[in-house]
């Protein structure tokens, strides 16, 4: 077991570094010279002095070869230093740590909501396969999956506008326990819920054909006990493995949800950085997003043998 975890970790670290290398290379070769970018932004009367620029470049280590600069960037990252924003001059780390709690709370809540709503709905749909109830749940899931957050959010707001006076429609951030979080949370959970409903349904349909389920029913075990004891447990395994994909939908969705509802999180930070071509911030946010997804995938790999002991036992795997 420990050997398995170590092997996973050893395979994981190089892939994280490689993703970082790829993103950094894109920024390095595409964005152009950061010093020039800073000077282009400066007020018009600042002279474009090549000698001065050369001096700054020398000092900042920008004359070094690509790999050396990447190494320095990684080294600084390990010390929590993401560089400074080209736009405001503030430390990127400070900007991120101010914005991260909002996104983190929202994302975690969305995951909890997803698990609580989607797993039961998927179970119901799967256990009543091809019934009208099944089609309703599945159709809703497809619709929720298809409609992007920046469409669902505004549509819901406009609908609320028909019911509430315009000042009362929630907008902005009021903390985790404020009423304002409900709407963004619902919209952010739409896609993960759709994903998990479909996963759970497919897994339930698969498990329902197993002999032990038929045996339990034949023995006269009540249906709800069959559902909770015999079906739920094996169904959770394939569902948990979707954690990485859920993370992707939440990271993508948060960008739009935060923008639509005016929440001061990482998503809005990304969009502002994008509008200002603020490279260090874009780079940092992309790295954090990729890191979250890859960490979720690693977590799934590590949890898998606990849920399904066959995964690490070579003897059992063959049967």
């Amino acid at each position, binding site marked *: 077991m420990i050997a398995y975890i170590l092997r996973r970790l050893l395979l994981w670290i190089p892939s994280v570094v490689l993703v970082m290398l790829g*993103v950094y290379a*894109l920024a390095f070769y*595409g964005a152009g010279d950061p010093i020039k970018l800073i000077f282009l932004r400066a007020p018009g009367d600042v002279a474009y002095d090549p000698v001065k620029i050369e001096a700054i470049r020398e000092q900042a280590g920008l004359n070094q070869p690509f790999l050396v600069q990447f190494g320095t960037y990684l080294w600084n990252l390990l010390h929590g230093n993401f560089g400074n924003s080209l736009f405001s001059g503030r430390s990127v780390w400070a900007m991120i740590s101010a914005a991260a709690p909002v996104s983190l709370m929202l994302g975690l809540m969305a995951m909890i909501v997803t698990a609580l709503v989607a797993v039961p709905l998927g179970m119901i749909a799967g256990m009543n396969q091809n019934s009208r109830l099944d089609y309703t749940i599945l159709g809703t899931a497809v619709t929720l999956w298809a409609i*992007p957050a*920046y469409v669902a959010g*505004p549509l819901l707001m406009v609908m609320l506008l028909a019911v509430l006076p315009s000042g009362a429609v929630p907008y902005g951030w009021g903390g985790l326990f404020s009423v304002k979080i409900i709407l963004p949370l619902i919209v952010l959970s739409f896609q993960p819920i759709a994903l998990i409903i479909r996963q759970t349904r497919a897994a339930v349909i698969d498990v329902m054909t197993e002999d032990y389920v038929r045996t339990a029913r034949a023995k006269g075990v009540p249906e709800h006990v069959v559902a909770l004891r015999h079906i739920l447990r094996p169904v959770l395994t394939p569902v948990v493995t979707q954690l990485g994909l859920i993370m992707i939908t939440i*990271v993508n969705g948060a960008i739009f949800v935060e923008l639509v509802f005016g929440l001061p999180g990482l998503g809005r930070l990304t969009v502002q950085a*994008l509008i200002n*071509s603020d490279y260090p911030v874009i780079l940092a*946010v992309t790295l954090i997003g990729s890191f979250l997804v890859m960490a979720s995938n690693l977590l799934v790999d590590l949890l898998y043998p606990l849920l399904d002991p066959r995964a690490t036992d070579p003897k059992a795997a063959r049967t």
Partner: protein
Amino acid sequence: MTDGTIINPPEDRPSSLWRDAWRRLRRNRLAVAGLVVLAVLVFVAAFGPWLTPYDFLSQNLDARNLPPSLGHPFGTDDLGRDVMSRVIYGARTAFLVAVLVTVVAVLIGVVLGAIAGFYGGRFDKTLMWVTDMTMSVPQLLLVVVINASLKQPISLWMEARYMETMNPLYRNSAIIDFVLVFGSMALISWPPYARLVRAQVLSIRNRPYVTAARALGLTNRIILTRYVMPNAVGPLIVAISAGLGTAMVLESAFSFLGIGVNPPTPSWGNMISDGLRVWTNYPHLLLAPAAVLAVVTVAFNFLGDGLNDALNPKGQK
């Protein structure tokens, strides 16, 4: 659904994969509804300029922010432009981007995936590794980075071409927008296609009829193009129909964020983000593009699911 052939009276024409699939698809009401919506979309996108009562750019400052009425079914925006005409032109933008991006992505994906699956070896390993990496970065953030990276080189190149040729086409910022959008989207969209085709080719490569073709002494190229690829097309079509929908959503997502198609070229995404600024007073500006985009993406998904069931009958339980 195998018993359907017994119940139905025998048909004159022999049944083929495609005819069976079409029959199965027609029975799926949701998929047919999706197909109809998309047919309307294609029609509107193709004949948009002849259908719209107003030009999408013409402003009428006397008729600003009008609510929906008979003359303007979706109302007018803050510059007095007809919203319905803009939504119809938005369909053109969405369709153009979706089709071009998907074509490029499928071409790259099919060629790389087929070569990797058929020949295997080091190329296969490298390709799988690259797709793994690309797919573990959140799509949107990757596009953001690619888009921001490409922007400067492309603008500089276009400016240089303009200086060389004095052709005003090179100064058209809409072209830069489109090149950026196409480029960055195609760059992130091909890996799923490559993986799909590779998996298909791997499973077909060792079938008896491929071995037979090899025994006949046919060249690898002919085996790949005539024997392997035609049998890998079914799942690819399902993926393409889903991919078109995804590409359309991505385009509107970028335009929404302000890195895609920029005003005054109408796109559903930038119309939604414009509408979002004034939605408390003029909800129709937000509602029209958002509702159309929602209907179209749902249609793509229903059609995709229907195609999946129709072309992979074995997958049905």
